[in-house]
């Protein structure tokens, strides 16, 4: 269980996290979505007590993280795959972490096996690929068999097999009754992994709830109709909160109504239908529409001038999120 109350973090003039409150319940996978610079990583660092909140508070399993007597049993975090000294072997890194809590070397070898690092455990971390680094990060998060897991972009850099593995792992951890809080840029990944979403933009929570609800609340459902008499049908059903768009001749998309209502109206007026279907927006579409006003670093392709006289300041500014 993670509970934030009016959590705020300012870096100088910049507000990274702006008065957010949320509760992440145990037994679920909660996805944390937001554009770069939205405040995801900052929020996770605040939960882990790595950064101090400017105001507000956040607790994990009932206490601020720093007050737990055995922090690694409470929370396992993958905050940054690079939070490892590159000169140390994976096994030594895990042993340094384990030693602080008196966790046995047997457990260290267990998490190494679990994350598929056995063959590279004695290699220096500096030589690791991004994917192996992520596996090491997940291994160190799992060391204390924690009740809560906080994973910042866990599938970043993993191959498809690794992505599938993370998906199964987090589902299993949630089914065991643990709290799983993970961020990702991959919306399709979230749609398949998360039970619920917390969407953040410019430091504020934009929306939250079960994945499908979030999608529906943002985009609504669209009813698509193909008919030789599409224009007539459009005239019949439009108005009264129903909006009509026509992507092509003979096809109309209706918002604000249901397939049943459209079908009944067509039958009543003897209109022939070639297709009547409910279109569900993807999470990706919902996300884009939610966050379009809160994208911190926009890459405005249309305005990019690639001529030799380009003013450098008009270049798309796609910074990586500060980690």
């Amino acid at each position, binding site marked *: 269980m993670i509970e934030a109350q009016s959590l705020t973090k300012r870096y100088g003039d910049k507000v990274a996290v702006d008065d*957010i*409150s*949320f*509760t*992440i*319940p*145990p*037994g*679920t996978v909660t996805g944390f979505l937001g554009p770069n610079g939205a405040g995801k990583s900052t929020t996770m*660092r605040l939960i*882990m*007590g*790595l*950064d*101090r909140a400017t105001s507000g508070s956040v607790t994990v*399993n009932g206490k601020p*993280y*720093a007050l*737990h*007597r*055995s*922090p*690694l*049993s409470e929370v396992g975090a993958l905050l*940054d795959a*690079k*939070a*490892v*000294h*590159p*000169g*140390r072997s994976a096994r*030594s*890194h895990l*042993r*340094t*972490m*384990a*030693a*602080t*809590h*008196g*966790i*046995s070397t047997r*457990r260290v070898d267990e998490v190494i096996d679990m994350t598929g690092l056995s063959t590279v455990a004695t290699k220096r971390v500096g030589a690791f690929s991004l994917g192996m680094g992520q596996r090491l990060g997940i291994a*160190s998060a799992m*060391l204390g*068999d*924690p*009740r809560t897991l906080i994973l910042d972009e866990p599938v970043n850099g993993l191959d498809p097999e690794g992505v599938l593995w993370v998906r199964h792992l987090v589902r299993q951890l949630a089914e*065991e*009754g*643990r709290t799983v809080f993970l961020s990702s840029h991959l919306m399709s990944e979230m749609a398949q992994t998360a*039970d*619920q979403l*917390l969407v953040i933009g410019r430091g504020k*929570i934009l*929306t*939250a709830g079960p994945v499908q609800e979030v999608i529906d609340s943002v985009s609504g459902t669209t009813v698509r109709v193909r008919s030789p008499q599409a224009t007539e049908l459009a005239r019949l059903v439009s108005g009264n909160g129903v909006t009509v768009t026509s992507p092509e001749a003979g096809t109309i998309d209706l918002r604000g109504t249901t397939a049943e209502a459209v079908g009944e109206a067509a039958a009543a007026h003897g209109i022939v239908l070639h297709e009547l279907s409910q279109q569900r927006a993807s999470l990706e579409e919902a996300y884009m529409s939610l966050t379009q006003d809160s994208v911190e670093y926009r890459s405005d392709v249309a305005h990019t001038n690639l001529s030799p006289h380009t003013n450098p300041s008009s270049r798309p500014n796609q910074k990586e999120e500060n*980690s």
Partner: protein
Amino acid sequence: MTAILTRPATTAERAPRPSVAARRTFVGVMRGEWIKLLSLRSTWWVLGSTAAVMALIAIGVAASLDSLMGNPMTSQGLGDLNGAALISTGFQIGMVTIAVLGALVITGEYATGMVRSTFAAVPTRVPVLAAKAIALVVLTTAVAVIGIALSYLVTIGKLSQYDLVPSLGSAETWRIFAGTAYCLVAAALFSLGLGALLRSTAATVTASLTVLLLLPSILGFINIHWVQTVVRYLPLPASQGFLPAGDPNQNLGSGLTATTGLLVIAAYAIVPLVCAAFVVRRRDA
């Protein structure tokens, strides 16, 4: 807005008890820091070069004895000197490498991001600093012993020609050896404290070596009374309160008593660490 996410009805109302026995203790944090130090190649390189540099300087000093003894200007002073001081002259350069180790122990963590893993495991943070300090004291003492022993062995032949082999039965010999180790340990801790405050390796090493080694000789040229007072309390001149200069040509004597010298050196070791303990607790990692 307040986002309350609900638990799905299908999930059982059970919070799993961790199956892994874990309890954070200071002894555990100590062990963690110890493993950290010993599992990095750079530690072994720094420790090895410290002992090697000390031995090499001792060889150099011993080799210079022929010409120094031949010169009536210097031979008189040498005659009164304890050979232990000659042997441990190399500690000044040993301070360079040991200060780099002291810095790296903490700035290496900031540079690589390891510090976030460290502070996530030990969110109270100050025990980490204390454990690092203790581990450094142990390692530096060990390397000082090895460096002095090595210097003793490689110079014993030359020193015996001039009857300068320090007597291991003399308290003066042990006082000098202990003082040398004391300075090395203090240099390591001074650097660790600075490193925790500054976080950058380059800034820490520069600042640390400037204070430890460069300032006394640079400021020595400025003949203003208060500057000279400052110089007397810099680490190297202060150490002359309890360590006679091995090289009689080099007079950094500060006129401080042995006790004052020891206290001044202790302050260099402790004050930055205590400041760092306050700062590290409150600062974003």
